[in-house]
């Protein structure tokens, strides 16, 4: 039964909360067990795309249906949620020993898992909304549980944006309900196609608002950095890997299942693409560029990776918005791969934070000799993120490039290229300043993290390489999704993908890369053996170094580049929103003084007036 997947985690959440009060590790163990159960039973569900479940509720004369169903798309998202939860739970068994709010963490985390599965299985607006709100509020508590001073403020920014968007969504849903008498997606889609295009487009744009916020797309991305930077270190991988993706899920639902693309099919087009889709793609492009430029500037590693998440979301949006088979497949590939490598990055950084207790990059250095496995995990993940073959990150970006070049979308392609090359810069910054360079004296005695924290990282490394060599595994499910949504499929085999103007064969590339590596290794090992010297014995213009701290280049790593964008970055969007709020409050204050002047009767009068106006509007519509 589908409800099991939703309510078992939610029920387990309270058990975990109670047990965790007794034993710090119990909550995380329960989380891991529940997610393992979810993963196993979801795997058993594979291929059974006909399971549905529904409940009826009569309320004030309205008959409301709650519909749940499985399809390849929901299945993929549910499996991804369960899989990443296992790894995070395993990781947090040890890492939460000293975390004050660990019981609250596990409570909320399990509820989020349940509600996310609820979201992806939901087939009507009301179910979606209920679980969406559950997820939003629980994640709000998780983000504000971070120890930082700013955590509360970041969480408020997140909740205000999310809640505002969600209520707009609810309004649109209720409007559709009034017209059709049902919250179900199917009937809504029928109604929207039949309705006047202008109104349908407006409704769908409003419906997609909460998803845009959650995915961190350009004008509404301001919550991402602070929320990621301040969330508990174990929650960041989930926040960045899964919760951003759930926004993408929502957008796919809007685009395909609510037939947004069908409605705008015959509107004005640019290069064969409806202008509205192109605008969405352009939003993705702007997201890539802003995310990238801001990521390069960060000195806090979690914020840096958060901005990089924003920029990677841009790729996914571009691929979905241009709606070609290659674009969609590339997006879905990138979505999965981004989950994998971004979780790896966040887990590796969480391991570093666990040992050093800081997130400022310039306070660290040379950790590679103390934490080699963490370094290996980070290195593999950034190779994937930067899109360097033979890892999974390259494949998905390559497919997206193919899609863009096929149609000749020049400006989208420039943004994609920019984000890809600039990602070398921002991923190299933590590599260089945290893991390489001089080891700080206060970190001399750091040890590698315990075994239970190593296992998730190891698994993720293997998965990155596995999907890098055999993208066919992913393409299998993606083609099922494409088929389900009515998109043409892409030709693939286990280790190759057919693009628009060229093919990608990852096994071959993996082999040739190994060959090149072996030739270099042979050359290296035949030459004279070298002598190992310490890190402080480096060229320093003849002067001998005594303290490592002053011989580490870490602060403002890309200053010359940042200087190019100083003016732009000074005008941050956050400031813009804050000024806007301030002005709104001020004008509201002025209005109040002019109209109400503190008399209670006036307020009553205005309320009645407003009600009448609303009623009139509702009647007219």
């Amino acid at each position, binding site marked *: 039964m589908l409800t099991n997947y939703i309510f078992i985690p939610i029920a387990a959440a309270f058990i975990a909360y109670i047990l965790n009060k007794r034993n710090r590790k119990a909550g995380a163990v329960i989380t891991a067990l529940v997610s393992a159960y979810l993963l196993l039973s979801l795997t058993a569900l594979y291929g059974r795309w006909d399971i549905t479940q529904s409940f009826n509720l009569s309320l004030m004369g309205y008959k409301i249906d709650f519909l749940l169903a499985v399809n390849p798309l929901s299945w993929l998202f549910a499996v991804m949620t369960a899989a990443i939860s296992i790894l995070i739970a395993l990781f947090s068994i040890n890492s939460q020993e000293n975390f004050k709010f660990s019981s609250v963490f596990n409570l909320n985390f399990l509820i989020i898992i349940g509600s996310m599965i609820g979201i992806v299985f939901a087939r009507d607006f009301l179910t979606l909304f209920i679980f969406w709100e559950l997820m939003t509020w629980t994640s709000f508590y998780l983000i504000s549980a971070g120890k930082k001073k700013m955590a509360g403020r970041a969480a408020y920014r997140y909740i205000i944006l999310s809640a505002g968007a969600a209520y707009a969504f609810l309004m649109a849903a209720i409007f559709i309900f009034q017209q059709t008498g049902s919250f179900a997606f199917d009937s809504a889609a029928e109604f929207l196609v039949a309705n006047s295009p202008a109104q349908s487009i407006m409704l769908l744009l409003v419906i997609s608002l909460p998803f845009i916020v959650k995915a961190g797309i350009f004008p509404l991305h301001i919550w991402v950095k602070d929320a990621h930077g301040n969330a508990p270190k174990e929650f960041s991988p989930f926040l960045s890997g899964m919760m951003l993706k759930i926004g993408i899920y929502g957008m796919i639902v809007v685009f395909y299942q609510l037939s947004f693309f069908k409605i705008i099919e015959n509107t004005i087009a640019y290069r064969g693409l409806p202008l509205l889709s192109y605008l969405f793609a352009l939003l993705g492009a702007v997201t890539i560029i802003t995310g990238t430029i801001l990521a390069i500037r960060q000195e806090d590693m979690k914020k840096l990776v958060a901005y990089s998440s924003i920029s990677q979301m841009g790729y996914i949006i571009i691929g979905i918005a241009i709606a070609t088979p290659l674009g969609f497949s590339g997006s879905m590939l990138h979505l999965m791969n981004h989950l994998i490598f971004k979780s790896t990055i966040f887990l590796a950084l969480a391991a570093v934070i666990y040992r050093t207790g800081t997130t400022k990059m310039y306070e660290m250095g*040379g950790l*590679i000799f103390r934490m080699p496995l963490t370094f290996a995990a980070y*290195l593999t993940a950034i*190779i994937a993120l*930067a*899109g*360097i*073959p033979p890892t999974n990150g*390259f494949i998905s970006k*390559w497919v997206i*490039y*193919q899609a*863009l070049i096929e149609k*000749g979308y*020049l400006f989208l*392609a*420039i943004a994609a*290229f*920019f984000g890809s*090359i*600039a990602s*070398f*810069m921002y991923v*190299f910054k933590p*590599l*260089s300043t945290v893991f*390489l*360079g001089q080891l700080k004296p206060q970190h001399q005695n750091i040890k590698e993290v315990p075994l239970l924290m190593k296992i998730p990282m190891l698994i993720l490394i293997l998965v990155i390489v596995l999907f890098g060599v055999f993208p066919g595994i992913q393409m299998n499910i993606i083609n099922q999704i494409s088929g389900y949504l009515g998109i043409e499929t892409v030709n693939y085999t286990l280790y190759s993908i057919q*693009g628009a103007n*060229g*093919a*990608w064969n990852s096994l071959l590339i993996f082999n*040739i*890369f190994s*060959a*090149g*590596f*072996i*030739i*270099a290794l042979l*050359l*290296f090992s035949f*030459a*004279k053996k*070298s*002598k*190992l*010297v310490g*890190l*402080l014995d*480096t*060229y320093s213009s003849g002067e001998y170094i005594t303290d*490592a701290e002053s*011989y*580490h*280049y870490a602060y403002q*790593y890309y200053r*010359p*580049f940042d200087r*190019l964008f100083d003016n732009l970055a000074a005008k941050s969007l956050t400031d813009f929103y804050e000024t806007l709020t301030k002005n709104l409050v001020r004008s509201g204050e002025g209005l109040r003084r002019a109209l109400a002047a503190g008399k209670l009767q006036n307020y009553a009068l205005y309320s009645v007036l407003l009600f009448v106006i609303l009623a009139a509007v509702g009647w007219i519509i």
Partner: protein
Amino acid sequence: MIDIIYRIGHFVLITVFSMALGLLFMGIARKIVARIQKRYGPPVYQPYLDVLKLFGKDAITHGFIFDFGAIMALGGVIATLFFIPLGSWQLYSMEGTVILVIYLLAIASLGMAMGTVGSGNPQASVGISRALMQMLGYELPYLVILFALIYRYQTSSVWGLMQAQAGSFLNWNLFAYPLMAAVAFVVLIGMMGKKPFDSMIAPSEIGSGPVVESGGKYLGMLLLQKSITIIIELALYVNLFLGGAENILIFTFKMLIVWVLATMFGSLFPRFRIEDGIKFFWKWPLGIAILQAIYIIT
């Protein structure tokens, strides 16, 4: 079995040939620069002696990441080499798309960056940070050019792009799209780190940047890596804009011409500051490349 031996022989042959040719080109470049400066210059075979000497010297290492970086740098370029058609020699050039080649080259850069920063020398870090910033400068126009070419010929393999220019030499992209060829030439100079764009290896400023700690065999391997990188970049240019070649001799000749011209241009200019270099790349080459791309896609 024989097939495997044949293939391995091919691997080794191409690797050795490119190393030798790259070192020869480096020697020629030193001679040209010397002649421009009214010097006699070192003998053409000087780089061979340098490499031989470096492999005979003692060396120090700063731990396994230092070793791994050097191996990854050389291995990355050798792997890239097999995807490029060199005249009639082409191992896997059918499969290798041109975007793949650009990104494979990044493996080598990443390896070198990792190894040298792993030495713990801040001058290496400064050099690498400059190199990465500059890379963002020149790769953007280059990728726009590739975008336009792939869109124009509807194939993304280097081999296909080369074949598309077959026939008369007027089909060469150099004559078909001269603006694009010029932009690519400027980018080529930037890629090879020649004079106006060499702030990342400024010897008297940051102690030769990325290679500051490399001596002995490490420097030797990086020299070999550099030589193969030169061949890859020149071969890409020749394949994309000069129509490739029938056999390896003509191909080498075309590469030599491009190399000599690039060296001559390089020896005329003083050095750009980093942000000025990026600004330059984003102003002129990128602007021209976008104009040309718009012309092609419409």
